[in-house]
């Protein structure tokens, strides 16, 4: 694994607090290795986008950050990932608690077969975040508002979440993640199943959420990475080839492979 090109000191001093710090992360699916020692620091209250060709390991890395890979039997993770001051792969860490702190939004909108209200209330309910009914209503309303969905659904909170349009469903899923007040939100290609208008709305939302949350987003769209993220990491064949401020990655990439990828020569 080559060492990361050190970011110059002037930029480094501008960097914010580090929220998540990954060191030498390796992932095996059975005998097949998917990540080969990935180092990445994720800054607080910033949007970090992970780009790269299909199968490069960016989604795998994202799923390491809240241990969603635990649900896959044959997957084993090595290295260290620190969230604040805990190593999330420490056996003492409670996965349930971790996932409450690091929420996730998936590629395909996956609302539960419940009402819109119950979809949002699900997380707070299982974590016991609300004392009573009015408390819960408050959380649901504010989550929907933060996700920019409230005005569209306020009259039909009792209707099933699956009845919404694709874009609304995805924002519902974001609202659902927000409702448990996580510190980090992971998004795995959140717009790939959406049309351009819905995509624009979700991107706008991501930009607003940055204020309160740290966001890591996997995307196949270079334009999307450029639009929504402040920092970008380029994955290739299970390694990070280059990482840095989005503007720099897209205007002056240091590595030839990055250059080739963002100009569409491969991937």
């Amino acid at each position, binding site marked *: 694994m080559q060492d990361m090109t050190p970011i110059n000191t002037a930029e480094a001093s501008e960097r914010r607090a580090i929220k998540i710090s990954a060191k030498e992360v390796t992932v095996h699916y059975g005998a097949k290795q998917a990540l080969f020692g990935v180092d990445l620091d994720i800054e607080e209250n910033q949007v970090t986008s992970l780009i790269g060709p299909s199968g490069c390991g960016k989604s795998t890395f994202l799923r390491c950050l*809240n241990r*969603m890979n635990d*649900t896959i*039997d044959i997957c084993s993770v090595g290295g260290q990932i620190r969230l604040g001051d805990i190593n999330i792969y420490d056996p003492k860490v409670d996965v*349930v*608690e*971790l*996932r*409450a702190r690091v*929420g*996730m939004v*998936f590629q*395909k909108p*996956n*609302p*539960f*077969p*419940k009402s819109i209200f119950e979809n949002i209330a*699900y*997380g707070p309910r*299982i*974590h016991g975040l609300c004392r009573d009914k009015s408390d819960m209503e408050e959380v649901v309303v504010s989550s929907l508002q933060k996700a920019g969905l409230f005005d569209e659904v306020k009259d039909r909170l009792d209707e*099933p979440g*699956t009845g919404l349009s694709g874009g609304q469903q995805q924002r519902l*899923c974001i609202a*659902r*993640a927000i409702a*448990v007040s996580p510190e980090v939100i992971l998004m795995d290609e959140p717009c790939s199943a959406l049309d351009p208008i819905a995509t624009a709305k979700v991107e706008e939302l991501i930009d607003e959420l940055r204020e309160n949350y740290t966001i890591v987003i996997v995307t196949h769209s270079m334009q999307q990475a450029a639009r929504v993220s402040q920092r970008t990491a380029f994955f290739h064949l299970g390694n990070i080839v280059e990482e840095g401020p989005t503007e720099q990655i897209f205007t002056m990439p240091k590595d030839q492979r990055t250059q080739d990828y963002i100009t569409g020569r491969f991937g």
Partner: protein
Amino acid sequence: MSPLWLLAVIFIVALTGAILGRSRAIGAVDGEVSTLHSRPGYYGSYVFIWTAIPAALFMAALLIAQPFFNRSVVHDHLFGAYESGCQRSLSFGKSNAAILKAGDENAPQICRDWIEFRDLETRQDLVQGVVRNVADGLALLNKDELTKLRAGLVAIRPMMAQKGIALAEDVSAPIVSAAYRLNDARSRANFLLYGGLGILLLAGFLGSYLRIRPALRARNLVEANIRIALIIASSIAVLTTVGIVLSMLFEALNFFDHVPLVDFFFGTVWDPRFQSVGRQVSSEGGQFGLLPLLWGTMFISLVALLVAVPIGLFAAIYMAEYATRPIRAVAKPMLEILAGIPTIVYGFFALVTVGPFLRDAGASIGLSISANSVLTAGFVMGIMLIPFISSLSDDIISAVPQSLRDGSLGLGATKSETIKQVILPAALPGIVASILLAASRAIGETMIVVMAAGIAANLTANPFEAVTTVTVKIVSQLTGDLEFNSPQTLVAFALGITLFFITLGLNVFALHIVRKYREQYD
């Protein structure tokens, strides 16, 4: 020639036609197959269909119609022959013959035959059978023997016996003449059959063969016939169901001639009182109250479901969500073996193991549980139902999209919270359907109940007592030497159709639930 041989001939002719048609199609374009509208095989199939299908349909129609036609020929002839024979023997007017009553011992034999034939349908059936037998026998005789018979030189009965046709009694002249008529009708029908088949085969073959041109859309024409064939196949299943229901319905209606609807559906006493030898056949026999049987059925099914639903559902959840692949690979087939055990085996498991065990266990804690009880039958039936619920539910739970699990786990829910709050609600319609299907099996189950719950039709809410079910009573009403027109046996059909409608209702309800909620979740 038997119909099977005729079918074989039709098939061979059509196959030859198909081969000819295919080569004609290829020949028409000098081997440039790609310029044909359809692949060459379709031209062959086209000829095959047009040669075989009309001929086969004609044959089927003729074979179905022939017995009815023959019957009426024989009937008309016999009627006339008996009547004129009777008049001749009485040698007084036709009007006198017409007023003879059945059972008039003084009338000559031929007149008694005629009156019986005129008035009794059963007698007509019998005579028709005899005529068919004689006709079959006559067809076996050679010319020589026939002349001897005609001349009255030999008796018909020994001659028939010689040919392997046993007649119960000596046959009268009208029957013999009717048999000749029948043979005439048969040979006419055969002539029609062979002639018609020949014409149809030839016409079908030539009509289709000569139409073959490169531009002929053989593929589309064949395609249309495939559709018809599929429709026929599915309508056979439907028509069979209709037939079963109708046959049960008519017998049940017969039953309701003897017993009023209200007494059957709302009666609380089941006491059919079998007629024994010597007792007068009468309408006073028995009470046919459905309620004790229905209650027994429902009670046992309820106990069975109380056993099967939790166990089956938990097993399904374990299989779908927790079991590792190797465990699942072993455990799932083993669970499904349960479904392969014949219910009679469950029955004696209940009889020799569960029943005595429950009785003894009950006795040791001061409960009096009879060896044949609702509990025994329900428990064993519940075991039987486990694989139905677990296997179906397993499939349904596994079909819940992984994205829903991820979504819930990603919010920090534990596995069991995810299952309880997301997966089971999503799978609920399917699970309910599997439970209802299991219920309809429980209701239709017979052998376990016969052996484990007994045959006493009690109306009791005590699960430690013996009850019986609708199916058991159907069996016991139809076992043994019975008269088929007494309410004691006909009640079986009324029970059967009641059961049919109950399970039908359950199945329709299950399908309705599945359909209503399915789209919502995927």
